[in-house]
């Protein structure tokens, strides 16, 4: 069972709808026991990092997420859900989950922020997750902030919006994507499908 973690932020219906379309069983939940029992976790989220972390902590979700990831459970962080994996976000100057090393920064070179729309991802790593996905495919983004990983080895996809940023990170059982795969057409679904079907991450 896949559990989409509900921490009272953003629009969870679209992620759930996406999983339904793939025909996989999933559940939206903030229940710690349900999360611990899940085979796979998805942390979605659109919104502010400060509010996101606050909500995670209030529900005790922050600790559980870290524990479950460390135990090797497949984990997908989408948009804010990816950013929260890092050490610190410039958005509200907030400490995040510290699972991945690096910071979350604001776009500074473009006049229009947030970035809204379809942008290309240059694939930097071989991974079974990218099976059936062309290099430089377009994905749907909505973000004002981006991840700046310390460890370049985790960067699996790069996108340019005034500056280059990590649009996909992969580390062990973790997949983080800055775009919304559930809204990124067939290509996005392919990635989601590869993830939920448990493709080995490193190709």
């Amino acid at each position, binding site marked *: 069972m896949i559990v989409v973690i509900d921490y009272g932020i*953003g*629009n969870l*219906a*679209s992620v759930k*709808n*996406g999983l*339904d*379309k793939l025909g996989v069983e999933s559940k939206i939940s903030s229940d710690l026991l349900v999360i611990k029992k899940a085979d796979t976790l998805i942390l979605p989220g*659109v*919104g*502010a990092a400060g509010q996101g972390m606050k909500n995670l902590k209030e529900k005790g979700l922050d600790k559980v997420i870290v524990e479950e990831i460390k135990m090797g459970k497949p984990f997908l962080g989408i948009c804010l859900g990816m950013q929260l994996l890092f050490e610190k976000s410039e958005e509200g100057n907030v400490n995040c989950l510290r699972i991945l090393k690096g910071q979350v920064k604001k776009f500074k070179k473009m*006049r*229009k*922020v*947030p*970035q*809204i*729309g*379809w*942008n*290309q991802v240059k694939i930097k790593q071989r991974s079974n997750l990218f099976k059936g996905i*062309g290099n430089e*495919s*377009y994905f*749907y*983004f*909505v973000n004002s902030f981006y991840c700046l990983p310390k460890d370049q080895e985790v960067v699996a996809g790069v996108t*340019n*919006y005034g500056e280059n940023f990590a649009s996909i990170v992969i580390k062990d059982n973790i997949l983080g994507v800055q775009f*919304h795969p*559930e*809204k*990124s*057409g*067939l*290509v*996005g*679904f392919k990635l989601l499908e590869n993830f939920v079907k448990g493709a080995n991450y490193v190709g």
Partner: protein
Amino acid sequence: MLAKRIIPCLDMTQGRVVKGIQFVNFRDAGDPVKLAKEYDKQGADELVFLDITATVENRDILLDVVRKTAKEVVIPFSVGGGVRTVSDMRTILRAGADKVSVNTGAFKNPKLISDCAKEFGSQCVVLSLDGKKVGKDWNVFINGGRTDTRVSAIDWAKKAVKFGAGEILLTSIDTDGTKKGFNVALTRQVSQAVSVPVIASGGAGKLKDFVEIFNKGFADAALAASLFHFGELTIQEVKDYLNERDIPVRSLL
């Protein structure tokens, strides 16, 4: 590079897509869910649904369309028409929309924008602005284009962004349905005045119009309705034309 978006607009009443000229003389253009699915397949980057009657009975029909569309399409879509409260917005988002557009409700009560942005994030809140030339300036018109607010379109756009609107859907009433081209001057002024993306709407008639609105109007996205509904141009034709002129557009796969 971030692609320029091509967005078909589905104006709806009583569960059917309709298209008018300058906000009147509507004709039927088909089933919304079917059309949405078709546009997704053709490579539309996003979809815009507007409930042009926005009565209480229509709201249930609209929500039904939203639910069905959310299950059928794999691209983002916004829904608007008669949104007056945070609870209206929540209902539409829960039905599966990605964004909600506000128009008259937000003009009368700008706090609606900040309340919605606070609850769901700015990226969910699209300001739908209908502008019409009055003298030298463009004024904001509300109530489906029937009422002149005497407020400048540019001023309202700036204010709405301050309140938290994440995007502006800018419709020129003067050019709407005329197929004589987008309102380049109005779009350029609004786009330069705000720091959020602007979707230009009203007047698309030929391929060249799309090039103009991106290159001269500084639009981030272009919207069209009848052109696509009645098969005069396909989304792919528009994108091929833009691509040949070095305007970045999303290609499928």
